[in-house]
Protein backbone atom coordinates (compact mmCIF):
# COMPACT_ATOMS: atom_id res chain seq x y z
CA UNK A 1 0.00 0.00 0.00
CA UNK A 2 1.57 3.24 -1.17
CA UNK A 3 1.56 6.16 1.23
CA UNK A 4 2.04 9.71 -0.02
CA UNK A 5 2.69 12.81 2.12
CA UNK A 6 1.93 16.23 0.60
CA UNK A 7 3.32 19.59 1.74
CA UNK A 8 0.46 22.13 1.62
CA UNK A 9 1.18 25.80 0.92
CA UNK A 10 -0.88 28.84 1.79
CA UNK A 11 -1.48 31.81 -0.46
CA UNK A 12 -2.75 34.69 1.64
CA UNK A 13 -5.45 33.29 3.90
CA UNK A 14 -6.36 30.35 1.66
CA UNK A 15 -4.74 27.21 0.29
CA UNK A 16 -2.47 27.59 -2.75
CA UNK A 17 -3.78 26.20 -6.05
CA UNK A 18 -0.57 24.24 -6.57
CA UNK A 19 -1.26 22.29 -3.37
CA UNK A 20 -4.45 20.88 -4.90
CA UNK A 21 -2.39 19.88 -7.94
CA UNK A 22 -0.06 18.01 -5.58
CA UNK A 23 -3.04 16.30 -3.94
CA UNK A 24 -4.22 15.19 -7.39
CA UNK A 25 -0.74 13.80 -8.07
CA UNK A 26 -0.73 12.11 -4.66
CA UNK A 27 -4.08 10.37 -5.26
CA UNK A 28 -2.86 9.15 -8.60
CA UNK A 29 0.42 7.81 -7.22
CA UNK A 30 -1.28 6.25 -4.18
CA UNK A 31 -3.90 4.49 -6.32
CA UNK A 32 -7.16 3.12 -4.91
CA UNK A 33 -5.35 1.00 -2.29
CA UNK A 34 -2.98 3.68 -1.07
CA UNK A 35 -3.35 6.59 1.29
CA UNK A 36 -2.67 10.32 1.10
CA UNK A 37 -1.62 12.44 4.04
CA UNK A 38 -0.96 16.16 4.09
CA UNK A 39 0.99 18.62 6.21
CA UNK A 40 -0.70 21.95 6.86
CA UNK A 41 1.04 24.69 8.82
CA UNK A 42 -1.20 27.68 9.53
CA UNK A 43 -2.13 30.07 12.33
CA UNK A 44 -5.51 28.34 12.44
CA UNK A 45 -5.69 25.19 10.28
CA UNK A 46 -9.19 24.10 11.35
CA UNK A 47 -11.30 26.09 8.83
CA UNK A 48 -9.05 24.86 5.97
CA UNK A 49 -9.36 21.13 6.71
CA UNK A 50 -12.70 20.52 4.91
CA UNK A 51 -11.01 21.59 1.63
CA UNK A 52 -8.39 18.86 2.03
CA UNK A 53 -10.75 15.96 1.42
CA UNK A 54 -8.26 14.41 -1.02
CA UNK A 55 -6.24 13.42 2.07
CA UNK A 56 -7.21 10.81 4.64
CA UNK A 57 -5.18 12.51 7.35
CA UNK A 58 -3.75 16.01 7.82
CA UNK A 59 -0.83 16.74 10.12
CA UNK A 60 -1.22 20.26 11.45
CA UNK A 61 0.98 22.76 13.20
CA UNK A 62 -0.58 25.97 14.42
CA UNK A 63 0.16 29.04 16.47
CA UNK A 64 1.85 32.38 16.16
CA UNK A 65 5.01 31.26 14.32
CA UNK A 66 2.92 29.17 11.91
CA UNK A 67 1.10 32.16 10.42
CA UNK A 68 3.63 33.30 7.84
CA UNK A 69 5.76 30.87 5.84
CA UNK A 70 8.92 30.26 7.87
CA UNK A 71 11.43 27.94 6.17
CA UNK A 72 12.94 26.30 9.26
CA UNK A 73 9.57 25.61 10.89
CA UNK A 74 8.26 23.96 7.72
CA UNK A 75 11.41 21.85 7.43
CA UNK A 76 11.19 20.72 11.05
CA UNK A 77 7.52 19.84 10.58
CA UNK A 78 8.17 18.04 7.27
CA UNK A 79 10.93 15.97 8.85
CA UNK A 80 8.73 15.15 11.86
CA UNK A 81 5.71 14.19 9.72
CA UNK A 82 7.99 12.06 7.53
CA UNK A 83 9.44 10.28 10.56
CA UNK A 84 5.97 9.70 12.05
CA UNK A 85 4.19 8.42 8.98
CA UNK A 86 7.06 6.92 6.95
CA UNK A 87 5.62 7.74 3.52
CA UNK A 88 6.78 6.08 0.31
CA UNK A 89 6.58 9.42 -1.50
CA UNK A 90 6.78 13.01 -0.26
CA UNK A 91 5.42 15.65 -2.64
CA UNK A 92 6.50 19.30 -2.64
CA UNK A 93 5.79 21.95 -5.26
CA UNK A 94 8.48 23.52 -7.40
CA UNK A 95 7.91 26.83 -5.59
CA UNK A 96 9.98 28.94 -3.21
CA UNK A 97 8.85 26.82 -0.26
CA UNK A 98 9.43 23.66 -2.28
CA UNK A 99 12.96 24.81 -3.11
CA UNK A 100 13.61 25.21 0.62
CA UNK A 101 12.08 21.92 1.62
CA UNK A 102 12.52 19.19 -1.02
CA UNK A 103 16.26 18.55 -0.83
CA UNK A 104 16.50 19.51 2.84
CA UNK A 105 13.81 16.96 3.76
CA UNK A 106 15.48 14.37 1.54
CA UNK A 107 18.82 14.88 3.31
CA UNK A 108 17.28 15.00 6.79
CA UNK A 109 15.21 11.83 6.32
CA UNK A 110 17.47 9.84 3.98
CA UNK A 111 15.13 9.99 0.97
CA UNK A 112 16.04 10.07 -2.70
CA UNK A 113 14.77 13.02 -4.72
CA UNK A 114 13.65 13.80 -8.23
CA UNK A 115 13.05 17.48 -9.05
CA UNK A 116 11.16 19.36 -11.79
CA UNK A 117 8.65 16.49 -12.08
CA UNK A 118 6.19 16.78 -14.95
CA UNK A 119 4.59 13.36 -14.54
CA UNK A 120 5.14 10.20 -12.51
CA UNK A 121 3.96 6.64 -12.95
CA UNK A 122 4.19 3.73 -10.56
CA UNK A 123 6.71 1.02 -11.30
CA UNK A 124 7.60 -1.80 -8.99
CA UNK A 125 8.72 -0.36 -5.61
CA UNK A 126 9.21 3.07 -7.08
CA UNK A 127 8.31 5.67 -9.66
CA UNK A 128 9.21 6.46 -13.24
CA UNK A 129 9.39 10.23 -13.49
CA UNK A 130 9.53 12.69 -16.35
CA UNK A 131 11.28 15.98 -15.48
CA UNK A 132 11.97 19.23 -17.31
CA UNK A 133 15.66 20.09 -17.45
CA UNK A 134 17.91 22.57 -19.25
CA UNK A 135 15.37 25.37 -19.32
CA UNK A 136 12.71 23.04 -20.76
CA UNK A 137 14.90 21.99 -23.70
CA UNK A 138 15.17 18.38 -22.57
CA UNK A 139 12.95 15.95 -20.72
CA UNK A 140 14.67 13.52 -18.38
CA UNK A 141 13.16 10.10 -17.77
CA UNK A 142 14.33 8.71 -14.47
CA UNK A 143 13.47 6.01 -12.01
CA UNK A 144 13.54 6.32 -8.26
CA UNK A 145 13.02 3.72 -5.55
CA UNK A 146 10.80 4.38 -2.52
CA UNK A 147 11.05 6.28 -0.25
CA UNK A 148 11.55 9.45 -2.28
CA UNK A 149 10.72 13.13 -2.52
CA UNK A 150 9.22 14.45 -5.75
CA UNK A 151 9.31 18.17 -6.45
CA UNK A 152 6.42 18.76 -8.87
CA UNK A 153 6.14 21.47 -11.54
CA UNK A 154 3.15 23.81 -11.11
CA UNK A 155 0.56 23.03 -13.78
CA UNK A 156 1.63 19.40 -14.17
CA UNK A 157 -1.51 18.01 -12.51
CA UNK A 158 -5.17 18.99 -12.67
CA UNK A 159 -6.09 21.23 -9.76
CA UNK A 160 -9.79 20.26 -9.84
CA UNK A 161 -8.93 16.57 -9.32
CA UNK A 162 -7.29 17.44 -5.98
CA UNK A 163 -9.91 19.91 -4.81
CA UNK A 164 -12.19 17.53 -2.91
CA UNK A 165 -14.33 18.34 0.09
CA UNK A 166 -14.18 16.00 3.04
CA UNK A 167 -13.32 15.62 6.67
CA UNK A 168 -9.78 14.26 6.96
CA UNK A 169 -8.52 13.08 10.32
CA UNK A 170 -6.38 15.74 12.03
CA UNK A 171 -3.11 14.91 13.82
CA UNK A 172 -1.45 17.74 15.71
CA UNK A 173 2.31 17.57 15.15
CA UNK A 174 2.88 19.61 18.31
CA UNK A 175 2.20 16.39 20.27
CA UNK A 176 5.55 14.97 19.25
CA UNK A 177 7.57 17.77 17.63
CA UNK A 178 10.35 19.13 19.82
CA UNK A 179 11.18 22.53 18.35
CA UNK A 180 14.75 23.69 18.86
CA UNK A 181 15.71 27.30 19.58
CA UNK A 182 14.51 29.40 16.58
CA UNK A 183 17.27 30.49 14.19
CA UNK A 184 15.09 32.61 11.92
CA UNK A 185 12.00 34.82 12.08
CA UNK A 186 9.81 36.60 9.57
CA UNK A 187 10.23 40.36 9.96
CA UNK A 188 7.54 41.33 7.46
CA UNK A 189 5.57 40.03 4.51
CA UNK A 190 5.54 42.45 1.60
CA UNK A 191 2.64 42.65 -0.85
CA UNK A 192 3.49 43.06 -4.55
CA UNK A 193 4.55 46.63 -5.23
CA UNK A 194 3.13 47.53 -8.60
CA UNK A 195 4.38 51.10 -8.49
CA UNK A 196 1.06 51.97 -10.13
CA UNK A 197 1.36 49.26 -12.80
CA UNK A 198 -0.54 46.00 -12.74
CA UNK A 199 0.46 43.92 -15.77
CA UNK A 200 -2.02 41.22 -14.74
CA UNK A 201 -4.80 43.60 -15.78
CA UNK A 202 -3.36 44.44 -19.22
CA UNK A 203 -5.26 43.03 -22.21
CA UNK A 204 -2.09 43.00 -24.32
CA UNK A 205 1.51 42.51 -23.24
CA UNK A 206 4.77 42.82 -25.13
CA UNK A 207 7.33 40.80 -23.17
CA UNK A 208 11.07 41.14 -23.73
CA UNK A 209 13.54 38.40 -22.84
CA UNK A 210 17.29 38.00 -22.71
CA UNK A 211 17.37 38.07 -26.52
CA UNK A 212 16.62 41.78 -26.50
CA UNK A 213 20.34 42.15 -25.84
CA UNK A 214 20.63 45.36 -23.86
CA UNK A 215 18.72 48.05 -21.99
CA UNK A 216 18.76 50.48 -24.92
CA UNK A 217 16.90 48.09 -27.19
CA UNK A 218 13.96 47.99 -24.80
CA UNK A 219 12.89 51.43 -26.08
CA UNK A 220 12.13 49.84 -29.45
CA UNK A 221 9.96 47.19 -27.82
CA UNK A 222 8.25 49.92 -25.78
CA UNK A 223 7.43 51.78 -28.95
CA UNK A 224 5.82 48.66 -30.37
CA UNK A 225 3.88 48.17 -27.13
CA UNK A 226 2.62 51.74 -27.44
CA UNK A 227 1.43 51.14 -31.01
CA UNK A 228 -0.34 47.94 -29.94
CA UNK A 229 -1.92 49.55 -26.88
CA UNK A 230 0.02 46.99 -24.81
CA UNK A 231 2.02 47.18 -21.60
CA UNK A 232 5.69 46.24 -21.65
CA UNK A 233 6.81 43.27 -19.52
CA UNK A 234 10.02 41.29 -19.07
CA UNK A 235 11.29 37.81 -18.25
CA UNK A 236 13.51 37.26 -15.21
CA UNK A 237 16.92 37.87 -16.84
CA UNK A 238 15.70 41.27 -18.06
CA UNK A 239 14.42 42.23 -14.60
CA UNK A 240 17.57 40.88 -12.88
CA UNK A 241 19.71 42.98 -15.19
CA UNK A 242 17.79 46.04 -14.04
CA UNK A 243 16.43 46.85 -17.51
CA UNK A 244 12.78 46.85 -16.38
CA UNK A 245 11.24 47.22 -12.90
CA UNK A 246 10.27 44.15 -10.88
CA UNK A 247 6.55 44.98 -11.17
CA UNK A 248 6.80 44.14 -14.87
CA UNK A 249 8.21 40.63 -14.39
CA UNK A 250 6.25 37.69 -15.78
CA UNK A 251 6.90 34.18 -14.45
CA UNK A 252 7.48 32.13 -11.35
CA UNK A 253 8.99 34.91 -9.24
CA UNK A 254 6.94 37.60 -10.94
CA UNK A 255 3.35 37.88 -12.07
CA UNK A 256 1.00 35.31 -13.57
CA UNK A 257 -0.72 36.91 -16.55
CA UNK A 258 -3.52 35.87 -18.87
CA UNK A 259 -3.81 38.63 -21.48
CA UNK A 260 -5.64 38.40 -24.78
CA UNK A 261 -2.34 39.00 -26.60
CA UNK A 262 1.13 38.03 -25.40
CA UNK A 263 3.84 39.01 -27.86
CA UNK A 264 7.24 37.87 -26.67
CA UNK A 265 10.54 39.04 -28.09
CA UNK A 266 13.72 37.06 -27.39
CA UNK A 267 12.09 35.00 -24.63
CA UNK A 268 13.38 31.41 -24.63
CA UNK A 269 10.44 30.08 -22.60
CA UNK A 270 12.03 28.37 -19.60
CA UNK A 271 9.46 26.47 -17.50
CA UNK A 272 9.61 29.26 -14.90
CA UNK A 273 8.47 31.77 -17.53
CA UNK A 274 5.79 29.52 -19.03
CA UNK A 275 4.31 29.10 -15.55
CA UNK A 276 3.43 32.79 -15.64
CA UNK A 277 1.96 33.14 -19.14
CA UNK A 278 1.02 29.88 -20.86
CA UNK A 279 -2.69 30.60 -20.28
CA UNK A 280 -2.56 33.76 -22.43
CA UNK A 281 -5.20 33.64 -25.16
CA UNK A 282 -2.97 34.36 -28.14
CA UNK A 283 0.81 34.01 -27.92
CA UNK A 284 3.18 35.26 -30.60
CA UNK A 285 6.83 34.29 -30.14
CA UNK A 286 9.87 35.78 -31.82
CA UNK A 287 13.14 33.96 -31.14
CA UNK A 288 16.14 33.24 -33.31
CA UNK A 289 16.53 29.77 -31.78
CA UNK A 290 14.06 27.39 -33.40
CA UNK A 291 14.56 24.96 -30.48
CA UNK A 292 13.42 27.54 -27.90
CA UNK A 293 10.69 26.01 -25.70
CA UNK A 294 8.55 29.15 -26.10
CA UNK A 295 7.45 27.77 -29.49
CA UNK A 296 5.79 24.84 -27.67
CA UNK A 297 3.18 27.12 -26.09
CA UNK A 298 3.01 29.89 -28.72
CA UNK A 299 0.30 30.00 -31.37
CA UNK A 300 2.34 31.89 -33.92
CA UNK A 301 6.12 31.88 -34.11
CA UNK A 302 8.99 33.24 -36.14
CA UNK A 303 12.74 32.81 -35.94
CA UNK A 304 13.50 36.08 -37.70
CA UNK A 305 15.83 38.60 -36.05
CA UNK A 306 13.70 40.66 -33.69
CA UNK A 307 15.65 43.80 -34.57
CA UNK A 308 14.57 43.37 -38.20
CA UNK A 309 11.03 42.50 -37.19
CA UNK A 310 10.45 45.39 -34.77
CA UNK A 311 10.73 48.19 -37.38
CA UNK A 312 8.65 46.16 -39.85
CA UNK A 313 5.91 45.69 -37.26
CA UNK A 314 6.04 49.36 -36.24
CA UNK A 315 5.82 50.48 -39.84
CA UNK A 316 2.93 48.11 -40.52
CA UNK A 317 1.03 49.42 -37.52
CA UNK A 318 1.65 53.08 -38.37
CA UNK A 319 0.47 52.61 -41.95
CA UNK A 320 -2.81 51.00 -40.98
CA UNK A 321 -5.88 52.88 -42.12
CA UNK A 322 -7.06 55.31 -39.44
CA UNK A 323 -3.62 55.63 -37.79
Amino acid sequence: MTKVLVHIELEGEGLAGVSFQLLAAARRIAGPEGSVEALLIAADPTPLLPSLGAAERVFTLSGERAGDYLPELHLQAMAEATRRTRPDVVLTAYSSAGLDLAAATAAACDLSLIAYCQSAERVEAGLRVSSQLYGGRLLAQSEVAFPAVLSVMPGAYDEAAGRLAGSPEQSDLADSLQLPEPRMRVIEVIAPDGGGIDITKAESLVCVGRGIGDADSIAEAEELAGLLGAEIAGSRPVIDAGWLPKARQVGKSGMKVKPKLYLCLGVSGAPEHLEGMSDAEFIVAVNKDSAAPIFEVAHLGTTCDLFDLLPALAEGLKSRPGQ
Partner: protein
Amino acid sequence: MHIAVILRLVPDLSDELDLSEDGKSIDREWVGITLNEFDEQSLEEAVLLKEASDAKVTALALAGEGVERMLQGALARGADAAVMLEGEGEDHLDSRAAAPIFAEAIRTCGADLVLTGVQTIEDLFGQLAPYLGSLLDWPHVSAVSGVALDQGHIVVRQEYSGGRQARIEVALPAVIGVQTASRPPRYVSASKLKEAMLSGRLTAQAAAATPLPNRAEVLGLAPPDRSAGATMIGDDPDEAAAAILEALSARGLLAG
Protein backbone atom coordinates in the same frame (compact mmCIF):
# COMPACT_ATOMS: atom_id res chain seq x y z
CA MET B 1 32.41 37.30 8.70
CA HIS B 2 33.63 34.79 6.15
CA ILE B 3 31.43 34.18 3.12
CA ALA B 4 31.87 31.07 0.98
CA VAL B 5 30.44 31.34 -2.52
CA ILE B 6 29.96 28.11 -4.44
CA LEU B 7 30.31 28.39 -8.22
CA ARG B 8 29.35 25.87 -10.90
CA LEU B 9 29.73 25.69 -14.65
CA VAL B 10 26.69 24.57 -16.66
CA PRO B 11 26.03 23.94 -20.36
CA ASP B 12 25.39 27.15 -22.29
CA LEU B 13 21.76 27.01 -23.45
CA SER B 14 22.52 29.18 -26.46
CA ASP B 15 24.47 26.17 -27.78
CA GLU B 16 22.86 23.07 -29.17
CA LEU B 17 22.68 20.39 -26.49
CA ASP B 18 24.02 17.10 -27.83
CA LEU B 19 23.53 13.93 -25.85
CA SER B 20 26.18 11.46 -24.78
CA GLU B 21 26.30 8.08 -26.51
CA ASP B 22 24.09 6.36 -23.93
CA GLY B 23 21.57 9.22 -24.11
CA LYS B 24 21.62 9.68 -20.35
CA SER B 25 23.52 12.95 -20.14
CA ILE B 26 24.71 15.99 -22.08
CA ASP B 27 27.84 15.50 -24.15
CA ARG B 28 30.07 17.91 -22.23
CA GLU B 29 32.95 17.43 -24.60
CA TRP B 30 31.51 19.78 -27.21
CA VAL B 31 28.92 21.98 -25.57
CA GLY B 32 29.90 25.48 -24.44
CA ILE B 33 30.01 25.99 -20.70
CA THR B 34 29.15 29.05 -18.69
CA LEU B 35 28.95 30.14 -15.06
CA ASN B 36 25.53 29.16 -13.63
CA GLU B 37 23.61 32.44 -13.81
CA PHE B 38 22.33 32.18 -10.22
CA ASP B 39 25.87 31.51 -8.98
CA GLU B 40 26.92 34.71 -10.71
CA GLN B 41 24.20 36.51 -8.77
CA SER B 42 25.37 34.93 -5.50
CA LEU B 43 28.96 35.99 -6.18
CA GLU B 44 27.82 39.56 -6.77
CA GLU B 45 25.82 39.52 -3.54
CA ALA B 46 28.86 38.24 -1.62
CA VAL B 47 31.05 41.01 -3.02
CA LEU B 48 28.36 43.61 -2.17
CA LEU B 49 28.30 42.28 1.41
CA LYS B 50 32.09 42.46 1.53
CA GLU B 51 32.00 46.07 0.40
CA ALA B 52 29.43 46.89 3.09
CA SER B 53 31.41 45.20 5.89
CA ASP B 54 34.79 43.64 6.56
CA ALA B 55 33.72 40.22 5.29
CA LYS B 56 36.14 37.89 3.55
CA VAL B 57 34.88 36.14 0.41
CA THR B 58 36.15 32.71 -0.65
CA ALA B 59 34.96 31.22 -3.95
CA LEU B 60 34.73 27.43 -4.01
CA ALA B 61 34.34 25.13 -7.00
CA LEU B 62 34.90 21.51 -7.92
CA ALA B 63 37.84 21.08 -10.26
CA GLY B 64 37.06 20.53 -13.93
CA GLU B 65 37.51 21.96 -17.38
CA GLY B 66 37.19 25.75 -17.39
CA VAL B 67 36.98 25.97 -13.61
CA GLU B 68 40.34 27.66 -13.09
CA ARG B 69 39.35 30.45 -15.44
CA MET B 70 35.96 30.80 -13.76
CA LEU B 71 37.60 31.12 -10.33
CA GLN B 72 40.03 33.71 -11.65
CA GLY B 73 36.97 35.62 -12.83
CA ALA B 74 35.58 35.42 -9.30
CA LEU B 75 38.82 36.87 -7.91
CA ALA B 76 38.65 39.66 -10.47
CA ARG B 77 35.11 40.45 -9.35
CA GLY B 78 36.20 40.87 -5.75
CA ALA B 79 36.58 37.47 -4.07
CA ASP B 80 39.58 37.41 -1.72
CA ALA B 81 40.48 33.78 -2.27
CA ALA B 82 39.48 30.97 -4.59
CA VAL B 83 39.76 27.27 -3.86
CA MET B 84 39.52 24.52 -6.44
CA LEU B 85 38.41 21.25 -4.84
CA GLU B 86 40.05 18.27 -6.42
CA GLY B 87 38.22 15.00 -5.93
CA GLU B 88 38.60 11.58 -7.38
CA GLY B 89 36.41 9.92 -9.96
CA GLU B 90 33.78 11.53 -12.13
CA ASP B 91 34.38 14.87 -13.78
CA HIS B 92 30.84 16.12 -13.34
CA LEU B 93 28.91 15.66 -10.11
CA ASP B 94 25.25 16.54 -9.64
CA SER B 95 24.28 18.83 -6.75
CA ARG B 96 23.29 15.96 -4.47
CA ALA B 97 26.59 14.18 -5.02
CA ALA B 98 28.58 17.42 -4.67
CA ALA B 99 26.87 18.63 -1.49
CA PRO B 100 28.85 16.51 1.03
CA ILE B 101 32.14 17.60 -0.60
CA PHE B 102 31.19 21.27 -0.37
CA ALA B 103 29.93 20.82 3.21
CA GLU B 104 33.33 19.41 4.18
CA ALA B 105 35.16 22.25 2.42
CA ILE B 106 32.98 24.85 4.16
CA ARG B 107 33.76 23.36 7.56
CA THR B 108 37.46 23.41 6.69
CA CYS B 109 37.58 26.99 5.46
CA GLY B 110 35.66 28.31 8.47
CA ALA B 111 32.97 30.21 6.57
CA ASP B 112 29.92 31.30 8.52
CA LEU B 113 27.77 32.29 5.54
CA VAL B 114 27.35 30.25 2.34
CA LEU B 115 25.88 31.84 -0.76
CA THR B 116 25.19 29.83 -3.87
CA GLY B 117 22.77 29.94 -6.77
CA VAL B 118 19.25 28.81 -5.93
CA GLN B 119 19.43 26.15 -8.66
CA THR B 120 21.07 25.10 -11.89
CA ILE B 121 19.44 24.04 -15.15
CA GLU B 122 20.42 20.42 -14.47
CA ASP B 123 20.01 19.64 -10.76
CA LEU B 124 17.59 16.75 -11.29
CA PHE B 125 18.36 15.17 -7.91
CA GLY B 126 17.83 18.35 -5.91
CA GLN B 127 19.37 21.76 -5.35
CA LEU B 128 22.66 22.38 -3.56
CA ALA B 129 21.72 25.02 -0.96
CA PRO B 130 19.05 23.00 0.91
CA TYR B 131 21.29 19.91 0.87
CA LEU B 132 24.07 21.97 2.41
CA GLY B 133 21.74 23.44 5.01
CA SER B 134 20.75 19.96 6.15
CA LEU B 135 24.25 18.50 6.00
CA LEU B 136 25.75 21.39 7.98
CA ASP B 137 22.66 21.72 10.21
CA TRP B 138 22.62 25.43 9.50
CA PRO B 139 19.48 27.46 8.81
CA HIS B 140 18.78 27.73 5.12
CA VAL B 141 16.62 29.94 2.88
CA SER B 142 16.32 29.69 -0.92
CA ALA B 143 14.76 31.90 -3.63
CA VAL B 144 16.46 34.91 -2.05
CA SER B 145 16.79 38.26 -3.81
CA GLY B 146 18.98 40.27 -1.48
CA VAL B 147 21.03 39.63 1.66
CA ALA B 148 21.83 42.37 4.19
CA LEU B 149 23.95 42.31 7.34
CA ASP B 150 22.33 43.50 10.54
CA GLN B 151 24.11 43.29 13.91
CA GLY B 152 25.59 39.83 13.71
CA HIS B 153 22.83 38.19 11.70
CA ILE B 154 21.52 38.53 8.17
CA VAL B 155 18.22 39.71 6.76
CA VAL B 156 17.18 38.06 3.50
CA ARG B 157 14.39 38.82 1.10
CA GLN B 158 12.59 35.68 -0.04
CA GLU B 159 10.43 35.86 -3.16
CA TYR B 160 7.17 33.98 -3.76
CA SER B 161 4.92 33.65 -6.78
CA GLY B 162 2.67 36.59 -7.62
CA GLY B 163 5.34 39.10 -6.60
CA ARG B 164 4.93 38.61 -2.84
CA GLN B 165 8.06 38.77 -0.68
CA ALA B 166 9.07 38.38 2.94
CA ARG B 167 12.00 39.76 4.90
CA ILE B 168 13.42 37.02 7.11
CA GLU B 169 16.06 37.44 9.82
CA VAL B 170 18.46 34.49 9.89
CA ALA B 171 21.09 33.70 12.53
CA LEU B 172 24.63 32.85 11.38
CA PRO B 173 26.02 30.47 10.32
CA ALA B 174 23.57 30.06 7.46
CA VAL B 175 23.19 28.83 3.86
CA ILE B 176 21.39 31.01 1.31
CA GLY B 177 20.18 29.99 -2.17
CA VAL B 178 20.43 33.23 -4.14
CA GLN B 179 18.15 34.01 -7.03
CA THR B 180 19.00 37.66 -7.59
CA ALA B 181 21.67 39.95 -6.17
CA SER B 182 20.73 43.35 -4.74
CA ARG B 183 22.34 44.85 -7.85
CA PRO B 184 23.04 43.45 -11.31
CA PRO B 185 26.43 41.64 -11.52
CA ARG B 186 29.32 43.99 -12.25
CA TYR B 187 31.42 44.09 -15.37
CA VAL B 188 34.96 42.79 -15.05
CA SER B 189 37.70 44.42 -17.08
CA ALA B 190 40.40 42.44 -18.83
CA SER B 191 43.08 44.17 -16.74
CA LYS B 192 41.41 43.01 -13.49
CA LEU B 193 41.19 39.50 -14.85
CA LYS B 194 44.88 39.55 -15.73
CA GLU B 195 45.73 40.87 -12.28
CA ALA B 196 43.70 38.05 -10.71
CA MET B 197 45.49 35.45 -12.83
CA LEU B 198 48.83 36.64 -11.52
CA SER B 199 47.74 37.09 -7.90
CA GLY B 200 48.37 33.56 -6.63
CA ARG B 201 45.12 33.71 -4.66
CA LEU B 202 43.78 30.63 -6.46
CA THR B 203 44.71 27.43 -4.65
CA ALA B 204 43.77 23.79 -5.03
CA GLN B 205 43.02 21.29 -2.30
CA ALA B 206 42.04 17.64 -2.19
CA ALA B 207 38.42 17.02 -1.35
CA ALA B 208 36.47 13.95 -0.37
CA ALA B 209 33.37 13.12 1.64
CA THR B 210 30.90 10.32 2.27
CA PRO B 211 28.22 10.59 -0.41
CA LEU B 212 24.48 10.77 0.28
CA PRO B 213 22.93 7.50 -0.91
CA ASN B 214 20.87 8.04 -4.07
CA ARG B 215 18.36 5.46 -5.21
CA ALA B 216 17.46 7.37 -8.37
CA GLU B 217 18.90 7.06 -11.85
CA VAL B 218 18.45 8.72 -15.21
CA LEU B 219 17.08 6.42 -17.91
CA GLY B 220 17.41 8.90 -20.75
CA LEU B 221 17.18 12.49 -21.96
CA ALA B 222 15.16 13.60 -24.97
CA PRO B 223 13.74 16.80 -26.43
CA PRO B 224 10.06 17.37 -25.61
CA ASP B 225 7.33 16.65 -28.15
CA ARG B 226 6.88 19.70 -30.34
CA SER B 227 3.85 18.50 -32.30
CA ALA B 228 1.38 20.84 -30.61
CA GLY B 229 3.52 23.93 -30.98
CA ALA B 230 3.35 27.25 -32.79
CA THR B 231 2.49 27.77 -36.43
CA MET B 232 5.80 29.02 -37.81
CA ILE B 233 5.56 31.92 -40.24
CA GLY B 234 9.01 32.02 -41.77
CA ASP B 235 11.88 34.34 -41.05
CA ASP B 236 11.58 37.13 -43.56
CA PRO B 237 10.93 40.17 -41.33
CA ASP B 238 8.46 41.91 -43.64
CA GLU B 239 6.48 38.76 -44.33
CA ALA B 240 6.54 37.79 -40.65
CA ALA B 241 5.36 41.27 -39.62
CA ALA B 242 2.52 41.14 -42.15
CA ALA B 243 1.47 37.68 -40.96
CA ILE B 244 1.52 38.74 -37.30
CA LEU B 245 -0.52 41.90 -37.97
CA GLU B 246 -3.02 39.93 -40.04
CA ALA B 247 -3.45 37.38 -37.24
CA LEU B 248 -3.89 40.13 -34.65
CA SER B 249 -6.34 42.00 -36.83
CA ALA B 250 -8.40 38.85 -37.43
CA ARG B 251 -8.66 38.37 -33.67
CA GLY B 252 -9.58 42.00 -32.99
CA LEU B 253 -6.33 42.52 -31.10
CA LEU B 254 -5.21 45.71 -32.80
CA ALA B 255 -6.00 48.93 -30.98
CA GLY B 256 -7.88 51.67 -32.81
